[in-house]
Every structure is written in C-alpha cells, then in structure tokens.
C-alpha cells in the first residue's frame, strides 16, 4: 500500500473548501438578474381547488408572475414520475395517480404545491403569496396507514380503494405448509414509523433559460443530476436532453431525499423561460419537513414458524406501506424489491412469503431513505427472532446462532442468493467484545442501584450497490443501475476522472483519487475527480444505496487506465 493509495489514511481533498466556507452549495450560487420563487402550499391535507385569484399578488411590488397547475397544463408540461413499475398479483400494473408539479384540481397533502410566486426578491415573493386567494373545497383526510384501504376517502380516482398495488414475493404454499406443521408460531404487529430525512442543507434550485440557444440549465441539490436530466427531458418534457444541462454542485447531505425529481426544481427550470430571468428557490426547514420525501411508514403483521428443534421453518409477512399522496420517483420499489428480498436476514429460512399492500394517503410522499426497505426488513426479522427466543426460553444469541446460514452459496426463497458469509464469527466476536458472559452479573449490580440493564442484538444483511441493470430491469426498474467513468490523462501527467457518481459527503474526491493513485502511481494532488455536471460527465446514475464504491469505482477500475510507464513517458516528452 502506498502512502496515498487504497487503504491509506489521507486528509480529504475536498475539506479545504468546506472548512474555509468556500464550498459552492446551490443556494450559494447567484446569477445576474435572478428572480426568487416562493411556493404557496396547501394548508389542507385534502381539498379541491375551486379558484385561485392572483390579481392582488400580481399588482404587488417586484412580482413577475404567479403560476399554477393550469399554466403547466397549458404548456403541456408532464407530471412527476415514478420510475419503477410494480405489478399486482394479478399482473395488472400499479395504479399511478397523476403527480403534477403544481396541483391541478386538487391538493393531497399539507404542503402540496398550489402556486409559485416569482418576484425580484424573496421578501417580495413571500409578501405577495399572502395576497393570493385560494378557494378550497376541504375534503376529509385519510392518513392512517393501516386503514387507508377501507377509508371512504379516495386520494386518486385511479385507485378507488387507495391501493397502489397488492404485490407478493416468495412461496405461499411452502410457507402455509411450514406454518401448519410448526411446533411454535410467533405473531407480531410491527410499526416502522415515518421519518423525515432532514439533511442539513435544505433543497434548492436555480433554473436558467438561454434564449439565444433555446437551452436550459438547472442547478439543483441532487444526488443524481443525470437522472434529473433524463426525467425532466424524457418524461416531464421541459426540453430535449441536449438542450438541458443539470448541475448538482456541492450538496449538503442527501440520505436518499435528494434522489428524487421534485416539483420545485421542475417549476424553477420551466418558469425561467416564462419570466425570462433565472429563477432561484431554496427550501426553509419547515418546507423540508413538509415536502422532502419521507421514509419508512410500514405497518406489518409478521409471523415466524419454528420447529421442535428451535429451527425457523417459515416466515410470513403482510406489510401495508404508506406511499403518501403521490408516487415519488422510486417509491414503488422500496417496500417491494428493496424490502422483501431481505426478509431471510442471516437465517436459513426454507419458506418465506411476503405480501405488500402499498397505499395512498393524504400525507407527504414516501420514498427511499437511508437504507430504503432494508432497515424495514431487518427490523421485522430481528424483532421476530428476539421475541421467538424469549417465548421459547432460548438465549437470543444462541437462537440466532442455531439458525444462521452456514453453507454457501445459499439461495433464499426471496430472490437473493448469498455468495459468502460467516455470521457465527461476527456473533462470537460481538459476544466477546460485549462480555456477554458477564452481563448477568452487571444486570444484578445495576438492579442494586435501582437501574434496569438490557442487552440486544441485531444481525442484519444489507443489499447495496444494487445491480445489474438487466436484473433490476426485469423487476420493473425503468432505468439501468450501471455507472460510468472516463479517465483523462492530460499532457503534463495530471489525471481527471469524470464519474457519474456524486459526492454529497461521501468523500469521492479523495477515495476515487486514491484508487487512481494506486493504479497509476501518480501523486494524489495530480488527480481530480469531476462529477455533478451533465455537460462535463457524459452519463451517470448518481449516488445512493451505497453504490458508488461498488459500481462507481468499478467503472473507474474497468476503464482502460493507461499503464504507469506511458504516463511517465508522456510527462517527460514535454
């Protein structure tokens, strides 16, 4: 290992700008003549829009425009999309309700976008928003995940019982047999509550239109600018791809919430042509809570079948997944293919059957967040395992060890095949490190001091770097999950890597450079990583799901990196 290659401890290259306050986050960027956008949002969870009167607002100082869903429709701008088709058990497609960037006819959650006010200053836009009169016909809300499908309140006409889809995975018959023959059955109702992602940097966007070239630029807080460009051009119809540049500069954390293509950035880029000025927007924290895609929100009935030897023989799960008021970009995949295939956990479970009902409610859209489906699966499995051990009177660590997969490769009943693993080794190490043997004594001692003491385990398995494209395509994904890298060696020996990955805290400018240093033997300072701009990097799928090491760096590694000798030859032949 060299001093700066793979595995070396180096100072991060990107840190200098962050510690000196010279990072370039989207809201730090200003464009001459920029106008500011403020979104008027619904205060109601569910309502029809009878009338919007912007006349007073339009007369206020600095106001350039007040735009609504009707204006989007008139310009034939498409709605926001969900890019992963999930089918019902009967083969019919999921019920995708329309998702306009500005509400058309109806609002479906508190925070839903009703109008955008564009003015010279943000203060003027905010002031004017208070003068926009919206006549709402308030409707009953439906917010409870467990009962959404039996509610009389319908969120989208295409889904009369608020069902997005009813999907399943696994072997139902084998599972029924396992449960019939079981010596012991554990039953649990498990709630995985909704989370708000809250990266420290609120979302922001700047849309620009160049009249001379009929060309748009969008600066946006995105984890995947190429995906944003694809969706905005091919589906939403802002402009053909070659007339749309998307730049995701420094981004202050994402955790999944900045994967999706949102209403605000769509409106900013569309509106920049309409008002003839750059349109800048940034979210405040309240808006972030209201309208950044939320995570989790599952209600699950889970059951585990165990035989007379304490071996798990079956797992049966029925999950109701709340997808919120509209289908966000990857929402449909999260409680299906990112969830159910992980239900085997680290255990040898011969029969598994999962049924998932995804539902609409009048709440913020739910989509991938930090683990996206896998934490939900782990929680279900580990809670069942823990409760099973307690009910059977078996030590929870031992119960896990009795059921770990020990022969590899191991084909689970839920698509995933595990190639290698040694779960016992991890558990043994954990037991030693935690001095598990001494726990009983520590608990008694704590009791004497009036304190309760507990110890818990979680054995989990995670699917990340999800790929290959053909596999996910066959499961309904509308995009491939490849990654792209281009290596440029410049005449004096500096190296630039153009990567479709995006760093919003992950440190790619350092770690990707370390890979190149390792392979080419060049100094760390002479390697630059270029990401986040669709004009510079030809293609990419972005960063999420822990894919940038596995897929992004593999792309760099597989590229035809010149051999070390040719670098030094070029450098010396100046």
């Amino acid at each position: 290992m060299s001093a700066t290659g793979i595995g070396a401890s180096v100072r991060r290259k990107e840190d200098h700008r962050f510690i000196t306050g010279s990072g370039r986050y989207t809201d730090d960027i200003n464009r001459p003549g920029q106008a500011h956008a403020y979104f008027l949002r619904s205060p109601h969870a569910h309502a029809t829009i009878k009338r919007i009167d912007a006349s007073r607002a339009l007369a206020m100082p600095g106001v350039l425009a007040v735009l609504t869903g009707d204006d989007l429709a008139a310009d034939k701008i498409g709605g926001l999309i969900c890019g992963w088709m999930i089918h019902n058990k009967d083969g019919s497609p999921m019920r995708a309700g329309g998702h306009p960037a500005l509400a058309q006819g109806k609002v479906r959650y508190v925070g839903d976008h009703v109008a955008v006010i564009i003015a010279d200053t943000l203060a003027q836009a905010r002031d004017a928003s208070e003068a926009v009169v919206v006549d709402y016909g308030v409707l009953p809300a439906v917010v409870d995940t467990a009962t959404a499908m039996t509610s009389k309140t319908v969120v989208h006409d295409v889904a009369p019982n608020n069902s997005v889809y009813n999907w399943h995975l696994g072997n139902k018959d084998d599972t029924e047999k396992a449960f019939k023959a079981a010596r012991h059955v554990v039953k649990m109702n498990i709630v995985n509550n909704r989370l708000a992602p809250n990266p420290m940097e609120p979302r922001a966007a700047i849309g620009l239109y160049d009249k001379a070239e009929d060309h748009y630029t969008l600066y946006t807080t995105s984890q995947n600018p190429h995906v944003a460009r694809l969706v905005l051009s091919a589906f939403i119809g802002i402009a053909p791809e070659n007339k749309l540049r998307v730049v995701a500069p420094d981004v202050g954390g994402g955790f999944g919430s900045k994967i999706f293509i949102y209403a605000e950035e769509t409106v900013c880029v569309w509106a920049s042509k309409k008002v003839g000025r750059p349109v800048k927007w940034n979210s405040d924290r309240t808006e972030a809570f209201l309208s950044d895609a939320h995570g989790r929100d599952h209600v699950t009935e889970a059951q585990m079948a165990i035989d007379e030897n304490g071996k798990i023989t079956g797992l049966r799960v029925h999950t109701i997944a709340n997808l919120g008021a509209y289908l966000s970009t990857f929402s449909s995949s999260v409680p299906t293919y990112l969830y159910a295939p992980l239900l085997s956990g680290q255990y040898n479970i011969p029969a598994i059957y999962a049924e998932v009902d995804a539902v609409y409610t009048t709440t913020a859209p739910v989509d991938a967040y930090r683990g996206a489906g896998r934490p939900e699966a782990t929680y279900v499995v580990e809670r069942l395992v823990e409760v099973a051990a307690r009910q059977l009177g078996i030590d929870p660590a031992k119960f896990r060890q009795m059921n770990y997969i020990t022969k590899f490769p191991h084909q689970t009943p839920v698509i995933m095949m595990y190639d290698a693993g040694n779960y016992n080794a991890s558990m043994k190490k954990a037991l030693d490190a935690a001095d598990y043997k001494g726990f009983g004594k520590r608990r008694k001692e704590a009791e004497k001091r009036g304190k309760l003491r507990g110890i818990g385990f979680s054995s989990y398995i995670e699917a990340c770097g999800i790929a290959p494209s053909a596999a996910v395509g066959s499961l309904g994904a509308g995009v491939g999950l490849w990654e792209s890298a281009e290596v440029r060696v410049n005449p004096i020996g500096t190296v630039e890597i153009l990567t479709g990955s995006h760093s919003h805290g992950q440190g790619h400018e350092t770690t990707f450079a370390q890979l190149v240093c390792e392979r080419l033997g060049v100094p760390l300072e002479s390697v630059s990583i270029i990401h986040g701009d669709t004009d510079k990097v030809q293609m990419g799928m972005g960063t999420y799901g822990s894919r940038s090491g596995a897929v992004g760096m593999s792309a760099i590694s597989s590229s035809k990196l010149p051999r070390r000798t040719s670098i030094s030859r070029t450098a010396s032949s100046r």
Partner: protein
Amino acid sequence: MATVSMTVNGKAVTADIDPRTLLVQFIRENQLLTGTHVGCDTSQCGACVVHIDGKAVKACTTLALQCQGANVVTIEGIAAADGTLHPMQEAFREHHGLQCGFCTPGMIMSAIDIVNRKGNDLDEHTIREELEGNICRCTGYHNIVRAVDAGAKAMAGPAKPMKHAAE
C-alpha cells in the same frame, strides 16, 4: 429601507437594506460571504453561527440592523491573511470532523467560542454539551468532538505536530 454599517472580517461595510434583513442574509446576499449557512428556521441547527464582538451568535436570529457598529467575523475571516488555517479549521480536517461540510462553518465558529469561554483543555462531556446548538446529520459527532478537542489544544500555543485521525 434603512442604512447599516458594521465591520465584517475586518472590513468596514455600509449598505441600504430592508429592515427585516437578518444578519445571515446580509452576510450571504449583501456581502456575498456564503460560508455561513442557513439550515433551519428555528435557531436550532447552528449552521449560521458567526462571531459578533467576540461572541458566538446565530446570525439567523439577529437582524442586520442590530449589528450596527459591530465587529462581525465569519468563517471566511478566521484564517490568516496568507491563507494559513486557524488551528480549529486544521483540526476538523485532521480528524475527519466533516462529511458534506454544510454544518462545518457553524461548528468551527462555535468550537472557537467554546475555547474562548472554557479554555484549551476541554473534556468530552463539556464539548458535547456545548455543541448542543449545532446539528450534524452526517458524522454522528464523534469526530467533531475529537476535532474540537484537538483544535482547543492547538489554540493554546505554538503549533504542535498533529497525529493523523485514528479511524
């Protein structure tokens, strides 16, 4: 409109502003110093911390007009004129005390203030308590605490050679 004059990073500035202008807006939009960030609307997150007359203040909760005549220092003003980093900045880099960098200016400004008030030999408990007004969503705080500890010590005297972060 109202006129405000103050010193920002050693430079005297005067401007006509909407009286509602927050100090953080004045710094970011008027002075184009974008290192100070806005992360919340409730004064909780600390991304906007600057120094006003030597004390850490949340710039999102201060009107620019309230700083009439004040001496304001932002993250851009703490390195030396020749670019030599402040020991606290150096410590954050050395100890991997940042990932996305968005909370970092506020963390560094708060950290310097902690040292100003509590001295150079900080214990972990004190650092964690004092950082309650600064939120980070990336790091889990462990390395930030290490960085503040190291930065505090380094602020005590002549620069000592620093060890690389352990993890």
